[in-house]
């Protein structure tokens, strides 16, 4: 039997990035997003992208105090996904669509700040994170430690590397590798071709 959690508990869990609550939200809300996406001929990868992005938006919102929901968490989550999905469809196919409401709550209850949810930003962010997490493990660790402002000497010691010069060189190489990976990503070319020469 699955336990049911209140919205407050889930938001608190997400704010603290607890794996259990993240998995719970993912498990509970994904089927609805899947249904929404499949209605418009989307695929499983679209579902993953939307859920991922909605989770980030929800997490960022939950960090901003005071965070108060005017509707249920599920409605809020689905409306983020829906918003992103329609933007994506619009970008892809320039289709005319009629935004139908799937929940029986007044629409102003889950009206989102349009400026905050932009599909283009979401694609960019997903693309960057995808490549960041696809780096070799040592590169990921060096870059994360570096951005935690840990000195090169300390990083070398923590990771059992030769010396700080090696860490510094490796950091440049990892960053360079990451930039190249992003620029050569087909998704980058598809969406951000205008930024290329």
């Amino acid at each position, binding site marked *: 039997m699955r336990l049911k959690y209140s919205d407050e508990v889930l938001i608190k869990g997400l704010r603290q990035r607890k794996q259990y609550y993240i998995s719970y939200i993912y498990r509970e809300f994904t089927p609805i997003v899947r249904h929404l996406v499949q209605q418009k001929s989307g695929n499983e990868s679209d579902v993953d992208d939307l859920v991922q992005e909605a989770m980030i938006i929800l997490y960022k919102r939950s960090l901003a105090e005071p965070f108060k929901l005017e509707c249920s968490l599920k409605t809020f989550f689905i409306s983020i996904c829906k918003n992103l999905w329609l933007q994506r469809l619009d970008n892809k196919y320039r289709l005319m669509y009629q935004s139908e409401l799937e929940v029986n709550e007044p629409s102003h209850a889950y009206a989102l700040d349009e400026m905050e949810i932009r599909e283009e930003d979401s694609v960019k962010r997903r693309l960057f994170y995808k490549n*960041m997490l696809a780096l070799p493990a040592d590169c990921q660790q060096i870059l994360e430690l570096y951005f935690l402002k840990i000195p090169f000497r300390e990083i070398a010691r*923590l990771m059992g590397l030769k010396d700080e010069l090696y860490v510094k060189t490796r950091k440049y190489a990892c960053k360079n590798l990451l930039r190249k990976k992003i620029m050569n990503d087909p998704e980058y070319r598809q969406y951000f071709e205008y*930024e290329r020469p």
Partner: protein
Amino acid sequence: MIRNIANTLNMKDLEITNEWIDRYNENDLTEDEKVLFRKRMEKNPLLRTEVHIDACLNKLYQDDGTLDLMKKIKNINKKTDRDEGLWSMLIAASFLYLIAFGTMVSLVRIDPGNLALNLNLRSVENRLVPNAKIFPIDIFEGLNQVKSITPDARRENSRKQQLALNYKPLDDFELLVGCVTRSAHLSLIAPSSILTRPSGSSVEFKWVCQGMKTPVNITFFNNRGKLVFEANEKEGESYTLVTQDWPGGVYYWKIIMEEEMIFMGKLILL
């Protein structure tokens, strides 16, 4: 000669692109370098794009919370994929099992009176070899062997299971492995935070004290968090641990100075 000059210029260009992008975004370039770099950017759209990407990356890396969240979401996706894979394998295995079982049933007849299996190959064999004999197969042969397991064998099995349990990491300590909590006066030179050695070998601990020498305690815990050994090194800057008679497994060590933990590491004895 012209080619050499061109190569030299290209190399210089490469150097600038690799390192200077990072330094430019971190405001680490000198004024002269900045001017030169900006000129390069004006002429080179590819460099401009790289600088833009690098700036975005810096911003994303600084938001370590979201990065952590992304990792956790990725773990869920991986787990879901793995679960789906397991389900497919389970279904495939069930089908194979059913086919194999069906084939066996068609070939084998179970005789409960004799507690034995007789191969129902008579019709086939009669066709192939007219006077062939059929030998019964005792299905309890293997079972009898299991029943007659000796106490020594049972003890050996139990020892193996116990040994396997020794390698299970302790979650509470795993989080602290490699952490430096207070390193103002002491720098650890050896060993590395995770070290694997054969059981019985020696492990050398080396450190350097800056300023006044302070007594150092090294404590060792097993993978259940139980203290197994403690060493007090009052004056020196090294200690050699001999792991003779230590059973194989995962051990954690802490370096403690003035009752505060300075460094924690893991030792795996094979």
